[in-house]
């Protein structure tokens, strides 16, 4: 369960988040949608304690992320890139992450196989393609087998087979009772994966609820999104 309540974030003189509030529930995939620069990544970084908010609270299973003793067993996060130093092998990267949270070494091989990187375990992260980096990032998020997954644009850089794999993986995770929160600016992709939707635009949540509710009278999620973010009729 993720609870985000009244989060305010100011960068320089710009207010990038205006009292953002929503929840992501267990057993469901929550899509956090918005145009580029709307505040999706900012919100997720605040949620993980990477950036500090100027107001509001962010809780994962009732506590702030940093207040959990072994945080990787509570929530796994996939942000930009793999998070692995270029000179480290995928295996070496995962081993230190596992050590930091007292996770068994055997988890390293398991998550590498799970994301399809078993054969690349000894390869240096600096030589990974974008798609492989994303997979390594996901493997890192899954190390602690956490009940909560937080994924920033998870399908970015994946090939069609990878996108299909990710979709199935996310659905299966929710079916197994996990809380899945993922951000995206790709509507078509999301409509097939998410149960709940939160739409953010210019730092404000403009719609949230179950998928059908948010689509409402519009033909598709994309139409609903464009109507709610006021980007309809933008001339290219």
């Amino acid at each position, binding site marked *: 369960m993720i609870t985000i309540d009244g989060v305010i974030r100011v960068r320089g003189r710009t207010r990038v988040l205006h009292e953002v509030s929503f929840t992501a529930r267990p057993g469901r995939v929550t899509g956090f949608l918005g145009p580029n620069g709307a505040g999706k990544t900012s919100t997720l*970084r605040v949620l*993980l*304690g*990477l*950036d*500090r908010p100027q107001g509001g609270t962010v809780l994962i299973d009732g506590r702030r*992320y*940093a207040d959990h003793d072994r*945080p*990787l067993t509570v929530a796994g*996060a996939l*942000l*930009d*890139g*793999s*998070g*692995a*130093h*270029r*000179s*480290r092998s995928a295996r*070496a*990267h995962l*081993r*230190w*992450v596992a*050590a*930091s*949270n*007292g996770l068994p070494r055997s988890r390293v091989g398991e998550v590498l196989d799970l994301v399809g990187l078993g054969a690349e375990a000894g390869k240096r*992260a*600096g030589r*990974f393609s*974008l798609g492989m*980096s994303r997979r390594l990032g996901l493997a*890192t998020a899954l190390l602690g087998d956490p009940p909560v997954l937080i994924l920033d644009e998870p399908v970015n*850089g994946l090939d069609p087979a990878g996108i299909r794999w990710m979709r199935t993986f996310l659905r299966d995770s929710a079916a197994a009772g996990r809380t899945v929160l993922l951000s995206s600016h790709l509507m078509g992709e999301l409509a097939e994966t998410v149960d709940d939707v939160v739409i953010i635009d210019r730092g404000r949540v403009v719609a949230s609820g179950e998928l059908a509710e948010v689509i409402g009278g519009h033909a598709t999620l994309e139409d609903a999104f464009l109507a709610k973010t006021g980007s309809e009729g933008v001339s290219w």
Partner: protein
Amino acid sequence: MVSLLDAELRKLLGLRTAWVGLLVGFLAAPALVFVSAGGTRRAIAEGLYTDSSDLGFQTLGIGVLGAMILGVVTVSSEYTPTGEDAPGARQLTATLAAMPRRARLLTAKGAALTLVVAVQGLVTTVATLALTRLVHGSLVPSPAPGRLAGAVLYWVLIGLLAYALTLIFRNGIVTLTVLVVNSSIVSVSYLLTKVTSAAVYLPDIVGAHLFLNEVGDHDVAPVTAGLVMAAWVAALLALAGWLFGRRDA
């Protein structure tokens, strides 16, 4: 805390640049004993050395570069971009996701660094002093244990100084340039001691009094030197910790 230390040791020792630091630290000073053997022998014969007990210890200065490199890379590796396709992505994100309590993270990182640098300092100091005895024989008195301990402490404090500065600058190149230029090419700190005797208490100058009898024109007792340098390092670490706790990652 043990698991955090374990993770930070793995991270540090898994970096190729850290091994450059380790090798420089281990090899440079002992190698210098051999390279400079002829010149040193002549200098002793001509009576240029008033205190030959400084002999092996003086050579150690170059090896401290290894401690500096280790102190720098343990932090700079966190800030290096992980790839071209994600310019903002750095290891720091993975680090803070795994170890979000920042004060504990910095403590574990500093402890891992201290451990590695202390071992490096001890091995190098013993090896360098033994080699000096081997090369120059009875011309060099056998080293006092207190001075050996002082040299290892200096080694560790230099590593922690580099660690604190890199945390403050968030950039390894800046720290390394400042430290290396100041310690080897033009020592601004040393030149300052010619202007004001207060400069004797700058961290890099005062630390040398921990294990050398003759440094510049001023005398500082080893215990005073250790306390002053430790105070400098503690203050810089406190500043670094405060900044790291407040900054966005």
